[in-house]
């Protein structure tokens, strides 16, 4: 054709090529697909590189991680999958993008209830789904998950969206403990106690307590640490200061814990290095870093939590199987819709 067509084609090609250049430098000794924020895992990865000399490369994807690996198929560069929620770990397993790891250190170091029954994924750290309560307006220091639905808290509760994975996992755990009907009733009770429509993230709930919009809220433990030590926005220290952490319990006296975890990708091109990384993540050194920097609870036995986290009180981690919890997340998500939880208080 003519010069113009050629030049238009050249522009197309040049544009395409220009976009290639960042892609070429990729793959390292271990390639990680993660739905955990890179900043939160980077210190641990740095320690791994220092100890083993193996380099790491990461992609942070929070929606569609398993679809991407599954579409990439046999050529997928993914070695290791890291996620923040047991539901996400289970979703990766269900999508068939993981493979089992057996007979390795990680199998020994991580307690069985925090591993997949088929060893397709492993928990690394835990975070409690606890109650933030106003220091001024809430006297009690003890509360059960069931209590949260009682009339005492009418118009006093704040949470983020019921469809958020942390709340879905909590409801799924409730189903595992008490059955689906009881869970539906419970979520209805929570809905009726809401002070406002669910919105924002966990920190926003602490902020709402600070602002006097509500008296109790559901939140993850580590956010309290993050707020209490926020030097850039000292205002957040005031939010943290307005609340106390209460460890709510199920009938077994234990508190719901969700996990961040790791899995070996099905077509991992660097399988050996990937397993090395997984073992390292379960080791003393990595677990210490997690505990100190991220205010999480290490899952390896005998590693202490940070002092700040200790101040929340004794954390009795629920020991029901997380695989079982994960299997209820579809039901849990449907319940949230059925009772129109995100529609907020009905009356």
């Amino acid at each position, binding site marked *: 054709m003519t010069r*113009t067509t050629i030049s*238009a084609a050249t522009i197309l090609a*040049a544009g395409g090529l220009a976009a*290639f250049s960042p892609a070429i430098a990729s793959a390292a000794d271990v*390639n990680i697909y993660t739905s955990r924020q890179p900043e939160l895992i980077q210190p641990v990865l740095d320690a791994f590189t220092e100890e083993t000399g193996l380099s790491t490369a990461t992609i942070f994807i929070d929606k569609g991680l398993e679809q*991407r690996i599954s579409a990439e198929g046999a050529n997928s560069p993914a070695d290791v999958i890291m996620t923040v929620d047991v539901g996400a770990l289970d979703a990766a397993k269900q999508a068939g993008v993981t493979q089992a790891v057996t007979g390795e250190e990680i199998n020994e170091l991580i307690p069985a209830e925090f591993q997949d029954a088929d060893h397709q994924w492993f928990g690394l750290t835990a975070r409690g789904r606890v109650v933030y309560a106003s220091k001024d307006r809430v006297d009690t220091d003890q509360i059960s998950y069931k209590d949260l639905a009682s009339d005492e808290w009418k118009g006093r509760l704040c949470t983020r969206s019921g*469809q958020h994975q942390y709340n879905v996992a909590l409801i799924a755990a409730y189903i595992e403990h008490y059955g689906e009907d009881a869970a539906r009733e419970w979520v209805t009770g929570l809905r009726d106690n809401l002070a406002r429509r669910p*919105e924002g993230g966990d920190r926003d709930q602490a902020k709402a307590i600070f602002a006097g919009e509500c008296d109790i809220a559901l939140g993850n433990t580590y956010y309290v640490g993050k707020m209490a030590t926020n030097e850039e926005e000292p205002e957040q220290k005031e939010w943290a200061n307005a609340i106390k952490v209460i460890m709510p319990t199920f009938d077994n006296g234990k508190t719901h814990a969700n996990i961040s975890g790791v899995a070996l990708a099905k077509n991992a091109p660097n399988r050996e290095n990937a397993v090395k990384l997984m073992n390292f993540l379960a080791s003393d050194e990595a677990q210490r870093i997690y505990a100190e920097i991220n205010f999480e609870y290490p899952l390896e036995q005998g590693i202490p939590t940070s002092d700040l986290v200790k101040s929340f009180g004794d954390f009795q981690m629920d020991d029901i199987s997380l695989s079982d919890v994960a299997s209820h997340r*579809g039901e849990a998500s449907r319940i949230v819709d059925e009772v129109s939880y995100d529609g907020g208080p009905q009356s």
Partner: protein
Amino acid sequence: MSATASFLKPDLKPRRRLRRGVDLRWLLVAGLVALLTVMPILSLVVIAVSSGPSESWSHLLSTVLPDATRVTILLMIGVAITTGIVGVVTAWLTASFEFPGRRFFSWALVLPLAVPTYIAAYCVTEFLHFTGPVQTAIRDVFGFTSRRDYWFPEIRSLPGAVLILSSVLYPYVFLTVRMVFLMQGRRAADVARTLGAGPLGAFLKVLLPMARPAIAVGVALALMETVNDIGAVEFLGVRTLTFSVYSTWLNRGDLAGATQLALAMLVVIVGLVLLERMARREQRYTLSRGDKAEASRLPLRPAQAGLASLACFLPVAFGFGIPAYILGDYASRRLSQFQNPALWDAVGNTALVASAAGLVTVAAAFLMSYGVRLTRSGRLTALVRLGALGYAVPGTVLAIGVLIPLAAFDNALDAFLRAHFGVSTGLLLSGSGAAIVYACCVRFMAMGYGAMESGFSKLSPNLDHAARTLGHGPGRILGSVLLPLMRPAILTGFMLVFVDSVKELSATILLRPFDFETLATFVYTSASRSAFDDGAVAALLIVLIGILPVIALTRTILKQAA
């Protein structure tokens, strides 16, 4: 840019038989490009029908769907009305009257276009929150201590979402409508006035009907962005259908059901667009360039001028001032971040992806619209318009539609080369910057194609005929005659796609290569830790990078209209 997306425009010219050979080649080229833009939507259709009607439907129908539908419709109506009124009134004021600040507002009114909806939602909420400057001042003045002591409107609500989305989306209407007013309106209004109409009468009877196609185009763009938005509505706690798409997919592991829902929404959008077009089928508005007799801007009385300034000031303050203030405030406490090399890598990546997306989109749009102009093939037109609908699909879902065919192509190519040549190419396209550029092209084709189509519509077909009688082929005509004349349209298309690509987040996240950050992903990683404030510096840079082309765009348009 009188019509950012004139895929809405009726095809009035009679069909013509293809001249074999040359035109057929163009049909093939344009058709191929159009197929590439439609492919992601097609692959979503495949996912949607692959598993039959999803179980999620009965669940959704009996639970959230009625309410989500109601919320979505109200949100769309609200955004349509608000962006329509704000866009038209500000365009009318700056085009027809003289008042203090008019020159400034004629470009400042476009600035909110550089602010992504999710950043606007966060900033406005911060600004109006209990701990923000407004409520703090109220408490200080009246001596309140708790949120329960006084009433304050809740910004995290449906009306709040309408206000916030409209505050950054009205520039689409402003841009398209002002172009009409500038090119035609003032003279038409002058004529109306000589016939005895007042300025308001001229506006209602002449200008407004004349601007209707442009209003439809601008509002359609605003609505498509409203429908695909998840960041802002999720943050504001407004449960739209898009929210249900994501919870169906992510919490219940039902991608097919989610895709069916997303496509059902797309069908509704197509329906709305067709309805509007049918409603004005009998009316024709020709934008001829005409002679360039300078029409006058009416001076206003002081009180009126004050009101006009205020009417232009409020949208700028709300859509740009508040975000800039909040981001600037957070950024000022994080100046050290400016020394972070990773941030500047992200700036480079953002600029690279956005420029590549702008170039490729405009080149593709140019080929397609020239193909349509040359062949007047109905099927090609339909295909091209279908491709421009990518804008209405939620970003992450569209990205899945991009990912699957790309990865399938890569794997097939790899298998073929391994089998025949013993070479492995691995994943060539998926997981590379090219995948992101491709996704941006598909998402923002509405902008690129709209600009090209409206540009071509201003060039008389006589130009082509004249050149042909001189013995030039279509390619030669394109190069020596049409391309130079199309320069403003090309620039407009490029800059609109560039600005939107700078803001693009959801497709980038899913498709990006290892250790690849753009400014938008930078902001997002902070926001997903509930620490949006840490992303303020990157957010500010998004806005700043977006402003440059926005200002250039305004200058191009003003020059074009002059």
